[in-house]
Every structure is written in C-alpha cells, then in structure tokens.
C-alpha cells in the first residue's frame, strides 16, 4: 500500500476542504500552538476506523464535526478520505475485482447518525475498512501512529499496559 493523499472537510478545525499530498520520505508539519496539526493527524486514524472518541480527545464521536466559531455556524457532517495505491489482491476483499489499483476510503459522520464508510464508492462496514488496513500492516491502532501524548504514556505505563502494546503489534 502507498498512501498518497488525505482529504478533509468539516473535520474538527478543518471546516474548509483541505488536501494533504503524502509523498515518499519525510514530510514535516509545522504551525503555531492550536492551529490544527494534531487534528490533521487524527483525521488519518479516524478514517482508518478509530472507534474511541476518547483517543481523539473527544467526548462523543460527533465532537469531530466542526463545532463552529464566533463567526461561523457548526457543520452537520464531517468527511475524510484517504487515497492509496494498492499492489496485490487487496481490492478483491471489497468486491472490486481488481487486484491492483487505487483505493479511496471515505468515512463520513452525520450529526446524531453515526459514521458511514465507502471504499471505491461502495458502502462497506467499519470492519471491512479495518481489515484492508490491517492487511497492509497499518490501521487506527498501528504502533507507527504516534499521537501527541503517546511517548509520555509509554513512559508512565505500568508493565502490564506495555505488554499490551506488544500484543497489539504481534
């Protein structure tokens, strides 16, 4: 899998559509405190199927929808898309027939109505999405997705909690 693009609209502070090109090598993301960098990274875990609002610094999953500012009203939905090139038999699992080609995963949440997932235009379940990403050695719980508090959590974790990190990666 080669993850190439991330598109967001209405996701947390990214009320306006935004697109991030993800190229090979090292891409830095910079900006002042509170400008939205962690929100951008959380969108990746969210579209991959993150099911716990708490791990996205939210009380409920609706909290990821743009909540409005003093000059803009709140939105009713949030949508994030991840685009990747797939090599191998991955696309057959979502009924695409193609074994190679492009994969576009879209997660959309509507206020009060929960999330819906699409893969290359077909409606799929959250479980299908997790399987696609798990087969590619990634996904919302990949150890390679290191959130802002994660290093401190690893350091202060009890030994049993750290063993669980090992289990998730096994």
């Amino acid at each position: 899998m080669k993850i190439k693009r991330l598109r967001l609209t209405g996701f947390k502070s990214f009320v306006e559509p935004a697109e991030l090109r993800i190229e090979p090598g090292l891409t830095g993301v910079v900006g002042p405190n509170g400008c939205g960098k962690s929100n951008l990274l959380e969108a990746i875990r969210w579209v991959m199927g993150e099911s716990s609002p708490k791990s996205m610094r939210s009380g409920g999953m609706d909290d990821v929808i743009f909540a409005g500012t003093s000059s803009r009203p709140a939105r009713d939905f949030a949508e994030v898309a991840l685009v990747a090139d797939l090599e191998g038999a991955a696309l057959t699992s979502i009924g695409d027939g193609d074994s190679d080609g492009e994969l576009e995963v879209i997660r959309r949440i509507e206020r009060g109505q929960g999330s819906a997932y699409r893969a290359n235009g077909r409606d799929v379940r959250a479980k299908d999405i997790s399987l696609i990403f798990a087969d590619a050695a990634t996904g919302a719980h990949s150890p390679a997705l290191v959130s802002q508090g994660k290093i401190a959590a690893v350091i202060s974790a009890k030994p049993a909690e750290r063993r669980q990190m090992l289990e998730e990666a096994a």
Partner: protein
Amino acid sequence: GRIRLKAAFEAVDTHFQRLFTTLFNGGAAHLELVDSDDPLEAGLEIMAQPPGKKLASLTLLSGGEQALTAIALIFGLFLTNPAPICVLDEVDAPLDDANIERFCDLLDKMVAETRTRYLIVTHNAVTMSRMHRLFGVTMVEQGVSRLVSVDLEAAEELVAA
C-alpha cells in the same frame, strides 16, 4: 497466543536493542518480561543504560533519555511489521539538539530501508531543517485551519545561523 507473543517480544527486543544504541550513540538496553512465566500475564519492563551510566529501569532516566528510549521501543514495534505510513506528533519536544540530530539520522536510515512515508509534526527548527518538504497549518481566520506549502529554504535559513 503465547508463542506468537514470545516471538513478537524477541523480534521487538532485537530491534529495540539496536535502535537504542544507535540513538544514544552507545550504551545498551533491553526488554524483559517480568512478574509471570506466562507471557500473556507478564509485564514489559524496559532496562536502559545510556553511555557511561548504570543499567536502570526506564523510570530512573532523565526526561530526554526516557523519551529517546520510548522512541526506540516504538520504532522497534514498527520495524517488526513496517507500516506504509508513520505519523509522529511532536516526539522531539524533550530532546536536546544532539539527540534530535541522531533522531533525524535514524529517520533518514529508515527512509532508505523501508518504503514508509513519514508525517512529522514539530516545533523544532533542527527537525524542520532535516525534512524533505514542509506543510504549514495556519489559522488566519480564528478557529479555522488551513493547509499551506512552506518554503523549505526559508526554514533552513533559520537553522543555518
């Protein structure tokens, strides 16, 4: 279950030991399963010895030493099953400039050895100067985030001083 966890433990430990010594430019560290003979019940202990210091549990190291050791563990987990994407949110905050250079050296090495793409959030000028490209997130309109491309050379001038 148990066999798979034990195998994962050994794979991660092998990577961790090597990554620690690379990041610390010396010293040694290893993982231990403790409190139980059953891996599924055991705790994971991290023993580390920065260059010239005594072997001790992670909790006795300095703030920056703890962070660098945790980075070695996380990358150890990652290398046993390389992901197509790796996202690091401000992991360099407690590191001094020398450790940040070694951390970036390690990123260069991993870029050469895996096909993983990296997204690295940072406030640190040294880290910024080592990136292949920069995106900026701005909030010109209060509470509204926008993504912009950032001129890497402008950022490099900051650090070249």
